[in-house]
């Protein structure tokens, strides 16, 4: 296991160099001409995770991979796909991890159930503390 890890680590710089050596994709640092479409792209990119950074969206990252993904998002939107179709395509390719907006589902329901619970508890606590007191 450790040997495998060492091998992988040894390969890593080569792979990174290969990627850095290429020029960035055309739409990584270029906006779409249609401002409405660019806004859609921007909104979508804000909600997609850069897979090689720590906690940054692809809209906020210098990483080459984030640049490639920005290019993908912009060209796909320009080709007429909707933002949700692009998100779906990226999720199909990279997994749920890439989307910062968790969709309610079998693995994410506590993220939505617990806030509802919090809301109910908050209302109950406030109602209890504030009911018919003050004498």
């Amino acid at each position: 296991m450790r040997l495998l890890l060492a091998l992988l680590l040894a390969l890593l710089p080569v792979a990174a160099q290969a990627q850095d050596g290429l020029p960035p994709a055309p739409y990584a640092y270029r906006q779409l001409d249609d401002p409405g479409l660019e806004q859609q792209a921007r909104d979508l990119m804000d909600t997609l995770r850069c897979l090689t950074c720590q906690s940054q969206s692809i809209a906020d990252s210098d990483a080459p991979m984030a640049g490639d993904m920005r290019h993908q998002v912009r060209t796909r939107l320009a080709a007429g796909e909707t933002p949700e179709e692009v998100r779906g395509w990226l999720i199909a390719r990279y997994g749920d991890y890439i989307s910062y907006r968790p969709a309610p589902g079998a693995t994410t329901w506590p993220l939505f159930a617990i806030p509802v619970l919090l809301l109910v508890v908050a209302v109950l606590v406030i109602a209890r503390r504030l009911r018919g007191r003050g004498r």
Partner: protein
Amino acid sequence: MIAELGLAALWLAAALAALQLLGGAVALMRGEAEPLAALVRPAAQVQALLCAIAFAALLYLFAVTDLSVALVADNSHSAKPAIFKLAGTWGNHEGSMLLWITVMALAGGLIAWVEHRLPERTLLATLAAQAFVGLGFYAFLLVSSNPFARAVPAPPEGAGLNPLLQDIGLALHPPVLYCGYVGLSVAFSFAVGALLTREVTPAFARVMRPWVLGAWVALTLGITAGSYWAYYELGWGGWWFWDPVENASLMPWLAATALLHSAGVLAARDALRTWTLMLGVVAFSMSMIGTFLVRSGILTSVHAFAVDPERGTFILALLTLYIGGALALFALRAGTVAEGERFAAVSREGGLVINNVALSAILGIVLLGTLYPLLTEALGFRVSVGPPYFNPMGAIFFLPMMAVLAIGPLLRWRQDRLARVRWQMVAVAAAFAAALLAAWLLAGIALLPLLGMALAAAVAVGSVLPLARRRLTRAPLTLWGMVLAHLGVAVAVFGMAADSAFTTERLVALRTGEQTSVGPWQVTLAGVEPVAGPNWTALSATLQVAYAGGASVPIEPQARSFWAPAQQTSESALLTRWNGQLYAVVGGQAPGDGAERWQLRLWWKPFVTCIWYGGGLIALGGLLALIGHVVGDLRRRRRWREARA
């Protein structure tokens, strides 16, 4: 030699903490007349001195770049500017833990020295709790992260400090944040002391409040500065990412904000007793969870944590011990603490209950969104929780809280009628409606920024109304503090909403002499040239920028390459006007047709600076309240002494 001196001081301090714990325990069981009990206060004071010596020793080792010390060799470099050599002391795991324990020991020493208002038994129990928490951190430092360990053989040169961290804002960020965490540990110790002796009185709240206020001011400053650092240093104009590291500092802040308000109720009205104790425990728990998240390596990956679990496991064990122990004590004793004074729904206390509940709920959501991805990763699948989750979920509780904040401070304690404040309510509602309408007319604003802007206007008006019809020079400092802090909330929320609603972005590749525009700005690329700093080289672009046809001003964003360690960063150039900031970044050379074109990223961010002005106002308000309370306490103490003499 100096390293060994520091280590010896640290061991002695740990031994004194053990003595302090023992003495406090004896006092608690057999009464404060026991001889051992008399040692508690001196032990805390000497411990503070020893920790200060240990920390000074580490500062010295970093200042002279003593590479025979492993920590210095791993984190410093002889070519680094002096200020960053010093900052390197706490820019790493061991040093930051030593800073934590030092601040904590200084706080304990100060309490032991000046605090005489509480029953002696409660105070000794508090210092014992403080020593108990401290011992865990001493053990952590001495067993698993000794900052003074030697490197054999000493390397010829150090490894350097991450260039992103070589920034004055970030050099000061951790100490400020740690003062906040430690202040909350003091509040925690007071809460545990009060639970042990069942003395939960307004006097207890008044003794605890300055510590909570101080911690809260430090956390506010730390978060505000950290956010501004991320904004200008990362080079993409974002100021909050809901990154777990950011959440780790936000969660204690949320708990401290709730604690501050509930301690205020306890001090003024003897109500919300158990609530205040609970929040005292929760606030420190959040500091511990934050430290665990940041320091254990669990954030880079659950698997990184599993590869080297020693440190993480240690903090996790401490966390379980303190939080679990305090919660168990709370469960045992909460029932025996009387409930306190009652109050009507429409009253100052009523508003503060809503504040407490809403802040706790927001805290719950941030905690959930931060921990859930770690949990699922441990279970074998990965999800991401980011701004599209936190923003709306938080807003469910935040927006109603803002509405209550606009009116609550106008109400009287215990019982009031809304009819009494109807004119103020009309003013607040008018501000809300006017802002809503104005923002509505600027088409294309999303719902959250729209509501944020309208509520910011309402809170801005509501926050200054408590000063109406008062002689401003006679208004107490604590009132000014509250007004400024609440106004700061309005200003910050306005800035956030404006940034999210009105920012314009321009990404272009320009040749020298070419022009572009972003928002009302005309931007010309005047030239690009190489420059060199002490430990970096850079491409520096000169941009001539003009606002709405006015005179043009040069700004110079840089793309820097550091060599120890090798890393690229972008130094953004910011041009601040009263109504916003122009944000410029130069990237690399654009690919293409042979002619030299340079990538530029430009943003015009109207009113974005309000976010940090607001944060500053909040901290200033807290500081004024702190001064007001401490001055009042000192005056009362002098009067009490004169009366006794």
